[in-house]
């Protein structure tokens, strides 16, 4: 269980890192390494060069503005989870992060790294897709911003080019009238989820005007389903969700059990998101009245 040999670079500036990536098509970026190092140790990956970005300045920032929450490429899950700005501006990010692996892994793993690792069984790719966020990437040719809906090409495959490094991710802020929910079922706390579901529900008074759910571990890529038209009908919502998903058998669960979890968690998470929207709307009214 030792990695194959690789050349190692630890650039002190972004430009140097980008030039190193451009120079070697077999190079990979090393950030937190919590997914990459096991892949190397099991020899499922053998890049010719690792470009370690941990010494790059300024990439560990987490900040909020009118666009939402921004997370730099070296911000560890633990730092994003601890950020009051993130919890206030987009609480779904905090809710989902608390379910990412164990605390020890969150201390080293990065949120942006998890997003571009593109594991459909991971929480953050689903969350950024559900929220309609984006990832800003840099190369020697300049920067570009990839919308989350264009980020995932297949299992463990993002649309970043080999010479690009993700520099930050953006999660849009929770809009007025919106509420969020998140739940997952795993064999043991901290393990990969058998199924995970996130939801964003928007209300106007007592009416639900939008209900969307995102799914992890039940398809090859993070999948978002619009469930607005099925609001109030659990069977119809589950049917619509499952028609967009592809639950599979593995050693942890059967496809039928995963489908069952989709039904249960969809109802549970939509209800939680609706309650959250009501609570926030009511708190907002109290504030306006006060």
């Amino acid at each position, binding site marked *: 269980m030792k990695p194959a*040999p690789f050349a190692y670079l630890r650039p002190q500036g972004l430009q140097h890192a980008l030039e190193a990536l451009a120079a070697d098509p077999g190079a990979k970026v090393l950030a937190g*390494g919590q997914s990459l*190092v*096991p892949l190397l140790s099991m020899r499922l990956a053998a890049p010719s060069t690792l470009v370690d970005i941990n010494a790059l300045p300024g990439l560990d920032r987490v900040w909020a503005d009118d666009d939402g929450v921004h997370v730099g490429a070296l911000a560890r899950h633990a730092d994003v989870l601890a950020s009051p700005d993130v919890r206030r501006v987009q609480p779904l990010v905090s809710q989902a992060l608390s379910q990412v692996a164990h605390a*020890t892994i969150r201390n*080293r793993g990065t949120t942006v790294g998890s997003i571009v690792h593109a594991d459909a069984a991971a929480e953050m790719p689903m969350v950024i897709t559900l929220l309609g966020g984006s990832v800003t990437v840099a190369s020697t040719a300049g920067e570009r911003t990839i919308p989350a809906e264009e980020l995932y090409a297949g299992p463990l495959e993002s649309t970043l080019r080999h010479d690009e490094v993700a520099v930050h991710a953006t999660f849009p802020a929770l809009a007025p009238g919106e509420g969020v929910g998140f739940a997952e079922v795993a064999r043991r706390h*901290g393990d990969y989820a058998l199924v995970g579901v996130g939801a964003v529900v928007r209300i106007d008074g007592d009416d639900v005007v939008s209900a969307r759910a995102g799914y992890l571990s039940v398809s090859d890529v993070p999948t978002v389903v619009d469930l607005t038209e099925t609001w109030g009908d659990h069977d119809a919502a589950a049917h619509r969700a499952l028609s967009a998903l592809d639950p599979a058998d593995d050693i942890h669960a059967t496809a039928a059990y995963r489908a069952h979890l989709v039904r249960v968690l969809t109802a549970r998470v939509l209800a939680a998101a609706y309650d959250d929207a009501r609570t926030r709307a009511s708190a907002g009214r109290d504030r306006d009245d006060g």
Partner: protein
Amino acid sequence: MGEELHDIRLSVNGLVREVRVPARRLLSDALRHDLGLTGTHVGCEHGVCGACTVLVDGRPVRSCLMFAVSAVDCSITTVEGLTEPDGSPEGRLSAVQQAFAECHGLQCGFCTPGFLTTITAGLRDNPAPTEDEAREMIAGNLCRCTGYVNIVKSVLRASQIAEERS
């Protein structure tokens, strides 16, 4: 041509140590093989079991999921660095170590270094955990002997000992 070697400095338990390692040397192996600090144990070697957990800048991190060359700017604490100074050459057991001894928090001892480092940081962040919080604190570490009952007791006892000593 041989594999390229890197001359690096690692700050471990308050001492700066110089080692020459290939880039692929895991931090866990650098600690054990290059520095002789065999208190850090290697179990699964892919981040699941928690036996190799060390403190990196005070936070628990899997040393099998870091390369030594990537740890150059960090301050590392291994289980060997947990004892507290009391004037004697070897120091005294830390509150967490004392609690494991009192509560029979270990049997074979293989997983223990990872638990001790994890709980040391956990109690610093939350000095008086509930039993549920104690369980959550150790959720990322596997033990195949104890069934965890005495480890949870040890967390709670360590909290008391730290309080008594302060």
